[in-house]
């Protein structure tokens, strides 16, 4: 399986994603934001970080960089595109996934482990994951997902919510919401579910010595689903 990770100026989880993808069998290439062409890929990842320093609005400048037109075309033709953290912020700026990401409710950067409940498994990202709840890791300042009531209805009707913040037993309640996201949303799909944006970093959960191993489970499953 071939993957591509895009490096924007200010990306800082690009290497971590490269390490994770390779660990689970992807042949990964790093792609520079100013390139025009995407290499042939089965998966394109927009990594975390602070593209363009998060100036203006998180993800907004990166969404206009040269490579993004190719990424958008790739996504529109059904290609798998995953945006993690800042990558998710870039995805909402391109309009590939609905909604916006506001500053965290308590106005503070937050770095910790969280539990997320998988809401939909009829997609290549979560199909065949046995668990209902995964322990992931978040590290962000602007992860407070928001959308209009109409958008929310559409998202829910289409089952576009990928994961919600919850407790270890999968209970989705306000107290387990780290950033104030509407409906505890931690990640969403586009309508076709080939594009996934999520705040948690599965690439930081690929080793028992790190925060945990549910990221390993996610990547192993992902590469099998793509085969």
């Amino acid at each position, binding site marked *: 399986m071939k993957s591509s990770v895009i490096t924007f*100026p200010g990306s800082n989880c690009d290497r*971590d994603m490269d390490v994770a993808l390779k660990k689970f069998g992807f042949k990964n290439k790093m792609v520079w934001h100013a390139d025009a062409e995407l290499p042939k890929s089965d998966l394109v990842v927009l990594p975390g970080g*602070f593209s363009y320093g998060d100036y203006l609005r998180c993800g907004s400048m990166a969404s206009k960089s040269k490579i993004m037109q190719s990424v958008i075309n790739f996504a529109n033709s059904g290609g798998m595109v995953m945006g993690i953290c800042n990558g998710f912020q870039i995805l909402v700026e391109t309009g590939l996934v609905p909604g916006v990401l506001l500053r965290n409710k308590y106005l503070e950067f937050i770095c910790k482990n969280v539990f997320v409940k998988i809401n939909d498994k009829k997609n290549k990202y979560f199909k065949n994951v046995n668990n209902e709840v995964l322990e992931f890791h978040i590290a962000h300042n602007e992860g407070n997902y928001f959308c209009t009531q109409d958008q929310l209805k559409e998202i829910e009707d289409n089952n576009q919510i990928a994961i919600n913040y919850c407790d270890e037993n999968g209970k989705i309640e306000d107290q387990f919401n780290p950033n104030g996201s509407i409906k505890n949303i931690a990640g969403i799909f586009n309508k076709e579910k080939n594009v996934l944006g999520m705040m948690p970093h599965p690439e930081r959960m*690929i080793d028992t010595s*790190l925060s945990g191993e549910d990221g390993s489970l996610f990547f192993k499953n992902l590469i099998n689903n793509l085969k």
Partner: protein
Amino acid sequence: MIVNEQVAIDHGLKKDEYAKICELLKRTPNITELGIFSAMWNEHCSYKSSRLHLKKLPTKGKKVIQGPGENAGVIDIEDNDAIVFKIESHNHPSFIEPYQGAATGVGGIMRDVFTMGARPIANLNSIHFGSPQHKKTKNLLRGVVHGIGGYGNCMGVPTIAGQTSFDSSYNGNILVNAMTLGLVKKNKIFYSKAAGLDKPVIYVGSKTGRDGIHGASMASTSFDEKIEEKKPTVQVGDPFTEKLLLEACLELMAGDSIIAIQDMGAAGLTSSSIEMASKGNLGIEINLNKVPCRESKMTPYEIMLSESQERMLIVLENGKEEQAKKIFDKWNLDFAVIGKTTKTKKIELYFNEEKVADIPVNTLVENSPMYDRKWKKTKLPKKNKIKKEDIKHLKIIDALKKILANPNVCSKEWIWQQYDHTVMGDTIQKPGGDAGVVRVHGTDKAVAASVDSSAVYCWAHPLTGGKQVVCESFRNLISVGAKPIAITNCLNFGSPENEENMGEFVECVQGIGEASDYLKFPVVSGNVSFYNQTKDQGIKPTPAIGGVGLIKDYKNMITMDFKEVDNLVLVIGKTEGHIDQSLFARTILDEKNGPPPEVNLFNEKNNGETLLKLIDNNLIRSAHDVSLGGIITAVAKMCIKGKKGINIKKPKYLINEIEYLFAEDQGRYILEVGKKDFKKVADILNKNAVHFDELGIITENELYINDKTKVTIDELSVSNKSWLINYMSK
């Protein structure tokens, strides 16, 4: 502007210093030259009050590749890998403007590390605030934490450990010390020594603006009521540009075109160019019209003294300019050839085709003032005796809860959750333990780092305090299973012109030197911050020690959380019952006098090295050093972290229960040992003449003391975790 004595005094120079400048130049300096002298000769850059004493610190060792004198220290961690590290203060700017002050402190120290060719792999910090009741404390704390996070998070470097304390002596002068570790190949370390004639001098990074002019001079004076007027001297950070600068520099460093490189930190273009010239015994000629400026009509004086952030000065090999420029263009950074190296041994500046400065380099560096300031020795205070009636009605659990909730002991999760501590995917011990630990990417090795200070001990007796801080750093590294290698120090003190403050400095440095010499734990880098005072009130002497150690196989790392019910808990090191200057004395007995606990260097070394042997033999399940709050506090924290209880039986000592549980004697650790391993452990401890007590046994979820006093771990956890969150949300 005409330069005279008064202008020199306004620049922070003393009368005799100005006279010396005129004598060295054999003429009156012009205003640009005076500015350069004032920047180079202030305390911050010249170490004029501290140099004499710093010379006494041990700085060499088998593992030391580079000691003090470069941008940062470098140590060998085997297999051609080396760690570059340093700690630095940004106290004054952080008090004036906490967000930017702290942010640029973090930015500055990271630049010092990647200037040497190392990719930063971990950040740490030591931050000290006034009394929680003081009206400024909360906002300063919030601003500093946001600033540290704002910069470090954006750079993508994990913040893995730190220290936060509160004390009213910092009410008018907080401390913000930032430390960075970087990883480099031993054969790819870059230095700041220029070499060769007619080599191009290159400016890269951000443009130069008017921010931070005289920042270094500000850091060399005390605060008064007019402090707010100094806001424009605080630099403004742009972590995004620094991230680009980091990547661009490392890309250029992969080749072989750099002769010397130096970041523009304190005193900006002035100190960077002069340091490179001085180390290379060369001259440097700069055309200031070529310096990329952010604002129009900047004068030579402003260009030379600006402390705009995210800039570097490079001496390149001839003919490599185009190749280097391509890299900086790719990262959208300024790149300008602004001058060349010369044989004149002078710093010569041109502006609009006129020579605006012409100063022999040695007058700025070797001939800078050095003072043997007067200082006063601190006598060892007399011991107090605990009065029986003071503790007669004392409930141990109440005292323990009070200590766990004390601002200097309580959980700092509210702070470190705001720092990205997991980016780079190698953090295997997060903040909240004895030391932070990161793997050396792609290897089995890991590096442990901690930062410590004990202002109260240093205040009570500087010599003992200085020794103690080094020992605590040593213990913290050993507690996670790391072999201590070297330290960096950030020496935060009051005014060197005050005999008492100067005495605190001299004796703390002596203590640091004695301990680091004995423990073979040399000082490889550091920074001195004097004038930490408001009006004539100095802070408590606060040397911060950043220690670094190596774990050969990261799978052998130790954490402090209790692991398994029925395991045994031991205390190693002798408990003599030293209560003076302990947290117990201060918070429960309200007693602030007396000597700090005595430091026995033999025991420190022996106990620590023996514990490392036990760890190497896989006999230790968890470990934690005993510090503030004594045995009971250390054990309670291990219970909280591991969500386990303990049944404690006080050994039959002469001292009473209170003294045993709350004393802050040094050289001690709490260990968790499996029952079947106990005999082996006891044998090794006995063979090495290490004193140990059998303290108790791990249980489900309650802390029992001598079968009569008990409390649930949940209750202790609430005491420990709620103070800071409640304080910040009020």
